[in-house]
């Protein structure tokens, strides 16, 4: 046909989640410049890191911009309202960059009652899940000699509730791997004091700390830990240690903190759109923007790869059902690995809507110049991704 395919994209360009959206403009510009990209219009809306606003702009994209496919990324606070809106409106949606449990379970009416959970017709998600993070974390910790006591920091937000859930969260998986989790309870984001948690960890003799913590809270926690003489052997937390900028703010104290790694320039993947490999993409980004690479770059890139692939396979982009079917039928090697909603590794209730991407573990190593390098220290879960070192205990 003559008309261009319209992609809606909701991302937190401003507000506290803006770090996740840092590479949006770059990636979209690069996408539109490709051959496939010429067939597309991308309409970007800023959710301002606000879930209500995310739902509003999603609806706006659907209603006034008449988009054919919705793309969304970056934390459940952003993906869930958009996916819910698309599902209600019957518009296909591809989502990423949120562990699948908070995405899938978090959109259910009553998350506490698995009987009531329903699959989605139009909302699709690809990322890893808590089982992956459990495997990666425990593998990393197993490299160190510890007493296998783990302290958990889980806030009362979408991620924290999913990770901290006693039945579907980290606890059972850690237990299966021989680790004991001590979880003092959900705290509110932006708490100014973690004495209670530190005391609880100390009482449980925890030598490992894990959790999913926003950067300011992690800084507070880590400073207080050191001040109060709590010295774990490993600190492996998600979110807070995602971006080099936030690790750099820790200075010396950032050395050897560890985190999950979902994408890096060392990942042995290449783009189906541009043919670039991961390193080339990261370097191009740094050249273009002058900023260091971050994990979201690969995933944002992959969103547009999948969009191009899916829309290339449908003859009527405005037919939502056909597009949804095409998404479900995706089999594509992308910048973040193979994407196929074939239910591999996903429990039956979510098999229809969730596809998993590989996850490994990394550790931040402080460089002589004060910068930090993310070294992959455990790849047992995805051996194809090369490891650059082994896990080191914190000083």
């Amino acid at each position, binding site marked *: 046909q003559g008309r261009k395919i319209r992609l809606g994209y909701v991302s937190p360009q*401003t507000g506290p989640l803006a770090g996740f959206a840092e590479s949006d403009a770059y990636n979209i510009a690069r996408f539109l410049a490709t051959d496939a990209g010429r067939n597309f219009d991308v309409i970007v809306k800023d959710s301002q890191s606000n879930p209500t606003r995310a739902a509003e702009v999603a609806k706006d994209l659907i209603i006034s911009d008449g988009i054919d496919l919705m793309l969304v990324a970056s934390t459940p606070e952003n993906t869930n309202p958009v996916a819910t809106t698309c599902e209600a409106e019957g518009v296909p949606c591809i989502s990423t960059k949120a562990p699948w449990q908070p995405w899938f379970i978090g959109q259910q009416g009553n998350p506490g009652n698995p009987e009531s959970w329903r699959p989605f017709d139009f909302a699709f998600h690809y990322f890893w899940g808590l089982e992956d993070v459990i495997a990666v974390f425990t593998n990393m910790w197993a490299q160190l000699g510890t007493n296998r006591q783990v302290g958990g920091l889980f806030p009362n937000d979408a991620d924290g509730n999913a990770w901290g859930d006693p039945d579907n969260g980290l606890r059972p998986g850690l237990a299966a791997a021989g680790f004991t989790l001590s979880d*003092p309870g959900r*705290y509110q984001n932006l708490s100014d004091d973690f004495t*209670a948690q530190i005391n609880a960890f100390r009482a449980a003799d925890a030598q490992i700390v894990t959790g999913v913590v926003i950067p300011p809270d992690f800084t507070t926690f880590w400073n207080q830990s050191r001040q*109060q003489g709590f010295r774990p052997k490993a600190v492996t937390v998600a979110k807070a240690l995602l971006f080099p900028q936030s690790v750099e*703010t820790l200075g010396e104290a950032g050395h050897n903190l560890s985190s999950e790694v979902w994408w890096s320039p060392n990942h042995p993947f290449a783009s189906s759109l541009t043919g670039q490999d991961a390193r080339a993409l990261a370097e191009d980004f740094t050249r273009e923007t002058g900023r260091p690479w971050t994990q979201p770059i690969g995933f944002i890139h992959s969103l547009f790869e999948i969009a191009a692939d899916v829309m290339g396979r449908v003859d009527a982009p405005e037919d939502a059902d056909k597009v949804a079917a095409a998404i479900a039928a995706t089999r594509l090697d992308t910048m973040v690995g193979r994407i196929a909603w074939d239910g591999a590794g996903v429990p039956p209730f979510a098999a229809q809507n969730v596809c998993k991407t590989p996850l490994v573990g990394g550790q931040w190593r402080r460089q002589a110049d004060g910068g930090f390098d993310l070294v992959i220290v455990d790849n047992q879960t995805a051996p194809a991704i090369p490891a650059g070192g082994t896990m080191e205990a914190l000083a």
Partner: protein
Amino acid sequence: MIWLDTIAQGILLGGLYALFATGLSLVFGIMRLVNLAHGDLIVLAAYLILLVVTLLGLSPWLAVLVAAPVMFGLGWMLQRWVLNRVLGPDILPPLLVTFGLSIALQNALLEGFSADSRRIPNPALEGASVAVGPLNLGVMPLLTFGSAVAVILVLNRIIYATPLGRAFRATSDDPVTAGLMGIDPRRIFALATGLAMVVVTIAALYLGTRANFDPAIGPARLIYAFQAVIIGGLGSLWGTLIGGVILGVAQTTGAALNPEWQILAGHIAFLAVLLIRPRGLFPRAND
């Protein structure tokens, strides 16, 4: 032992809250101005310090000396040109203006510094601690508390033992009659806000070294500051310190019971104090 630690840490946390609140207390006490932008001004000051640290390579402690006069000037101009014009018996106009200022500041900072979370580097002291009996107390929290006490001592000295302080109190009592004494209330208010901004700069130093900050982090600090001021009672700076300590201890004890109750416990302590003493613990006799 754990309880002792919980309370000690709560008191130190209270020092931080008191520092956030002291500037607010000054402004609220002297001109009954509810400054919704106070939290954002603290963040602004933190960025200013960070800027000085990175551009001039100064230590954060020296950077405060550079940032404080700038903040004083900013506060002075803000009061002189904007806030003075909306002060009055009606609390709404200043409420709306400072709310406008708050979102304008947040977004200007976002444009200027991006949403990255930053930190004022302070490698020498941030992990340091001293053992006090069975407790390990962080050097920075102790310094924070000490600074809160020092700031209040100095401010009280200014307020109760200098002609400027006399003018502050007189203007606060009755700006019209103060005018008859040759005191220009607008000038006094501008000075007071400038002074408050100096305190804000000091608070910003501790905010910025304690945890990361980003442009959006201000409002979360504002509510604690208000609570500390109100618990303490209008116009009493020591009251503000005690208010901060009550908040801090309530939060740490609440968290020790269950982290879910940490912030809730602070709010409930605030409401409980107000329920018993609607004008705070140490209100001024004449209000």
